[in-house]
């Protein structure tokens, strides 16, 4: 038998390793999603998602967790809009108005990289300190503000990466037609917007599952908040509360996890659909 050269063996070994790693990741995702769906569907009921907790919620299955579902959405969706409203101009300013190599651009990029690495509990605690200082109580507004700050670095980082993919020729093309910076920017935005939407929704996916940031700032409540100054429940915090109770409610946990997963799924599918509609003409 002819000897197979070492380089082919090396390639095969590496290929097998790559496949194994990919399968490992896939297995991870599938097992989490599978568990949540199977157990969640078994335990979820219409009552859970349509009612706020009843009086006896901590000893029996009285009522549902509509307060947490609506609370999470009421925190995250305004935060996404606010976050995008801050992040998109920053990304555009860093990449188009300033040269990418401009010192200010560099400093801003560094700052957001640092912010990106700060754990969400620190954001929460920091915001809480400020809220105490100004005499604000845990509220929907507090939750929205902290979640916005949590999302901004994520959005800016991805937006920055996306902007790098805009070909220089496209910028030159718009300029050479006599477009102003602002007009050029509108052309570039068409190119980067789908990516920005995906980035925003990824950030939402992360933020909606974050318990630490909203723990002190949004508080918790059995009712759906009626105003910005009311405290509000959120899904991850609700799950956390049920798990640490002396008699945990695994059914409710799985039900809430299912709802959370479905919300994230819907958001990311909607983002893809929206993105593909805008990208129809992209280069």
């Amino acid at each position, binding site marked *: 038998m002819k000897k197979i050269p070492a380089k082919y063996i090396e390639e095969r070994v590496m290929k097998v390793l790559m496949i194994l790693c990919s399968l490992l990741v896939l297995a991870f995702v599938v097992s989490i999603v599978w568990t949540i769906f199977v157990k969640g569907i078994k335990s979820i009921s219409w009552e859970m998602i349509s009612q706020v907790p009843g009086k006896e919620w901590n000893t029996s299955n009285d009522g549902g967790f509509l307060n947490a579902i609506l609370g999470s959405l009421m925190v995250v969706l305004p935060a996404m809009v606010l976050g995008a409203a801050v992040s998109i101009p920053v990304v555009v300013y860093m990449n188009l108005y300033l*040269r990418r*190599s401009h010192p200010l651009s560099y400093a801003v990029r560094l700052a957001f990289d640092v912010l990106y690495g700060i754990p969400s509990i620190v954001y929460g605690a920091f915001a809480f300190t400020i809220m105490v200082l100004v005499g604000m109580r845990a509220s929907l507004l507090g939750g929205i503000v902290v979640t916005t700050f949590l999302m901004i670095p994520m959005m800016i980082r991805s937006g920055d990466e996306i902007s790098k993919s805009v*070909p*220089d*020729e*496209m*910028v*030159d*093309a*718009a*300029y*050479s*037609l*006599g*477009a*102003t910076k602002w*007009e050029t920017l509108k*052309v570039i935005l*068409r*190119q980067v917007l789908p990516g920005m939407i995906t980035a925003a929704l990824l950030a939402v996916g992360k933020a909606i599952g974050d318990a630490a940031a909203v723990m002190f700032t949004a508080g918790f409540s059995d009712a759906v908040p009626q105003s910005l100054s009311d405290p509000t429940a959120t899904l991850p915090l609700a799950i956390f509360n049920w798990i640490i109770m002396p008699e945990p409610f695994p059914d409710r946990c799985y039900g809430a996890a299912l709802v959370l997963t479905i919300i994230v799924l819907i958001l990311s599918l909607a983002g893809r659909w929206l993105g593909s509609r805008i990208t*129809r*003409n*992209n*280069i």
Partner: protein
Amino acid sequence: MTLNDSMSVRDLSLSIEGQPILKQINLEFPKNDITCIIGPSGCGKSTLLKCLNRLTDNMDNVSTSGGVYVGEQNILTAKEAELLELRRRIGLIPQRPCPLPMSIYDNVAYGCRIHGLHSRRREMNETVEKYLTAVGLWDEVKDRLHKSAARLSIGQQQRLCLARSLAVEPDFILADEATSALDPISSKTVEDLFVQLKKDYTIIMVTHTLSQAQRIADHVVFIYLGEVIESGDAKQFFSSPEKELTRKYLSGSFS
């Protein structure tokens, strides 16, 4: 501002991070002719082209001196509003075609819209048809005008870029190795287009291919290490160059 304006470069020097890239360039670009700028890679010919419509603004650490004149206006010192108008009058065909992220129709219409030309729908339709026809693209795309420009072949994209530039009614066309990314057939089509277009436009093109310059140039500028070595009438330039360096370049001693 009239159609009689011609373009000239006077004492143009440019350096990037202190490194001189262009040194004391003086040139006239004769009207309604094709001027080919040739020279080895890295000699500064693309940078020179970028100076002509001041796309150098988008480069890092660039400093320029001297002037690029259209008529009496110096592009390099023009104010924002003047610059935009000058840029409209100078079309650019890039090396790699780059359609804007919109439909074929909107690509051609875009420039007109930002300059407020042809505000009536019918007028715009006619303009789009006129310039797509001028670049020989109309028959190929008339049934899918509102489809994405990104789906065109690269040769078609290059002609679309040309149509897009022509639609804002420029007087000059700058082309930066406009055929180097194209296959031989598309390349020939674009080349023929340039020859047709010179009756209405002044064309300045950078090319890497000597044979292309020989085929279509009326005037030739030879640049080496940021300096104009020789420039003049194409026939004379190719048959009896004056400088030793030019002879060497033309004979292929270096490239």
